[in-house]
């Protein structure tokens, strides 16, 4: 997997201070994408899990990690993301994981795919859905357009229905 960027710490990609991993490559091609260059699977540098884990372990201010991109959950990226998240949960059991995806939760469930399901089991909050320019709203929290949702994945899986995070 290629990495389009990495934030050591950020306050605007989920609650609390979080590290943010931007993978490269995205199949959705939403019009007016804010990271157009990251749609290319060859953009950026190689993802080095050891290096990223070291940065995370050295920083006591962060309390979680956000997966962004690019598209972390597309077939080309998902295996590396899963490996990373499992290691993260092992080394930092108290960290929560947010994930931005252009797929909807329903699409991901419908995949009926082991890797996807295992990753969802390890994700706490999923911001799902493609970016839709016509539904863009600057007042929204942690997302760009109103069709996108901030989902409490644990509750979604438990209740087997859509549960959004309340702010």
């Amino acid at each position, binding site marked *: 997997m290629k990495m389009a960027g990495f934030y050591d710490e950020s306050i605007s990609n989920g609650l609390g201070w979080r590290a943010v991993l931007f993978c490269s490559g995205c199949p959705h091609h939403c019009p007016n994408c804010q990271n157009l260059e990251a749609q290319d699977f060859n953009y950026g540098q190689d993802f080095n899990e050891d290096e990223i884990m070291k940065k995370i372990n050295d920083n006591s201010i962060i309390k979680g990690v956000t997966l*962004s991109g690019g598209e972390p959950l597309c077939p080309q990226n998902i295996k590396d993301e899963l490996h990373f998240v499992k290691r993260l949960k092992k080394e930092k059991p108290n960290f929560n994981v947010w994930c931005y995806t252009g797929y909807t939760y329903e699409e991901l469930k419908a995949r009926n795919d082991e890797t996807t399901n295992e990753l969802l089991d390890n994700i706490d909050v999923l911001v799902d859905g493609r970016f839709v320019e016509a539904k863009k709203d600057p007042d929204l929290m942690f997302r760009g357009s109103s069709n996108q949702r901030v989902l409490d994945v644990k509750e979604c899986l438990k209740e087997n229905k859509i549960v959004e995070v309340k702010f």
Partner: protein
Amino acid sequence: MQVIKRDGRVVDFNKERIVKAITLAMAQTQGGVDIDLANKIAGEVEKQLEGKGQTSVYEIQDLVENKLMGSSRKEVAKSYITYRYNRDIARKSKTKEVFLDIIGAKANDITRENANMNADTPAGMMMKFASETTKPFVDDFLLSPDVRQAVKDGYIHIHDKDYYPTKSLTCLQHPLDRILENGFRAGHGSSRPAKRIETASIIGCISMETVQNEMHGGQAIPAFDFYLAPYVKKTFIEEIKKEEELLDKDLSNLYNYSPKEYIKKELKGLTGEERDVQAAINNTVNRVHQAMEAFIHNMNTIHSRGGNQVVFSSINYGTDISPEGRCIIREMLESTYEGVGNGETAIFPIQIWKKKRGVNYLPGDPNYDLYKFACKVTAKRFFPNFINLDATFNQNEKWNKDDPHRYYYECATMGCRTRVFENRHGEKTSVGRGNLSFTTLNLPGLAIESALEAQEKTGLKFELGRGSEEKMTDKYKKTVKKIFMDKLEEYANITAKQLYERYRFQCTAIAKQFPLLMAGMWAGSEKLGPNDSVEPVLKQGTLGIGFIGLAEALTALIGKNHAESDEAQKLGLEIVGKLKELVGEFSDKYDLNYSVLATPAEGLSGRFTKIDRKKYGTILGVTDREYYTNSNHVPVWIKCTAEQKAKIEAPYHDLTRGGHIFYIELDGDATRNPETIEAVVDLMDKYNMGYGSVNHTRSRCMNCGFENSDANLHKCPKCGSEEIDTIQRITGYLVGTTKRWNSAKLAELNDRVTHNTGIKGA
């Protein structure tokens, strides 16, 4: 050929003027006038300038000086230089240019020295005229020769030099209880003791506004919650009495009732005494809220100090756990969160949360709920900042949780960072005390000079600045450090002496020159009569030795700054540690409270750099930017995590008892994420830092009220309006528009990194 005169006028070249000047200089010497030599030199100068369309008086004078130095009459050169210097003093021709700039409301660095001041108003201009004319007066007549030279050469900078002749002191932490309980006289009116929250809050404003006119620095209230709490209770009783009248009922048994919490509740369903009490509480809370709103509004609108500046006001609070104190804190936070006018962020007062374990920091602490709220307010409004009372150096062992006056032993700060606490002439407290004056050392200037001397001494020759460390030998490093430390001591000594001289000058004032300040507000002044000298009480204040550009100085000395190498950090701590040690010696020598200050350098941030670049040229990592980094800060352009920054800057807090601050730049809108503010306070707690806050941007659409954290917001994404107001922080103060920033500070702003660049997040 034409000559540009000092005042900008252009006149024709006249050789006779040169002859006249030389003969006048000759007349002052033993050898007397030699008209032939004078004619000869004037002729040579004219020849040398031949072909030039235009020249300046300065250029001609330099040529004359050189010719005289090369002639047989060197003593005439000396006389000529002295003559020229005296003429310069007499002329002060620069004044005219400066005045023209002020009149023309031109945005240059003279009128932009102070981002919070509007120098375009008549009162503002009047102040600038005065300011620009007193500075040269101070140089010529109030400074001793070695100090004057050190200032002129750019080694030291005397802050608020324009106020020097007025004998004013810098700042004060107001003991507000004195005037609230006793009333006071200011201007043409006197005020009786306060009886209710509205008057108490307004008296707080008046106190700061009045004393601001008597000083040259900021005004602060060290324990806002403790001081105003009694008036919440008085207001409650007043409300009970109103009910008595309204209901024609005796409720005097409730005068001594102590509400457990002043929180509004619906009256529906409440009966009897419970209802009477709750109604009074509801009305009290409303009145306290309005009083806090009025306080904020007043501090942002009433211009003091000649009518051109709002007060540089700060309030410290957070540790009063009484229901009344908590009410003050809660309503101040509420009002701040709501904003002024149509919900705009208030610039003043700077609010400072006094963070203390056992009181308000940990879950279970009595004011923990208000601390959480404070973080939420900071996320949206930049304030409150946080002073860490748990830092080892911010504690006073006399503090006792059952002492109703325990705030007296709590360290308070001026919003800008000035800290007054330790005291060799009385109790360790901030209350009723302040800084007398402060002067800043140019560390990069001293470092460059030391490096050049070390090269000479060791025979090494290389370009200074970033990347130079590979060329350095151990011997060179030892040599340059020794030279630098010696110079540091030399100029710290000059600074200490200068501060002492200013102190002696301040001591010649009598109490009535500072009508409110010296009538009981300044510690000990209650014992002074109007015509008494202020000398006996001035020793309660502090004398600050500040420094600028540690990062650039280290780069000049060893090729890297303290964020780039452990070796540089070690040296940085030695340098500031040396200053702290010297300040201890000065305190003993002069028997005064000297302290090291991590200077908040607004007007200064570009001045030293300009001087040094002119002297030494552009040096990579040293003089290659428009500004020097403030005090011991990690340069704003360095990419490092908040925790790395904390680790580097924290140890300097203990060394800089005259004041320090820790900042974190946020990469987005914390309004949605207040726990990130708590994380910054946690860093302060973890690394024993004294005072800190967050920097972020708030852009606001003046049309529809939309707000976000985009510093480059030019068009509102909601309504499309281009009326955008952007607030940022400059040396501790918030500034509503960057138009009032000077060029060096603007350059610094542009270099500030939020550490997350390239790819965009949410």
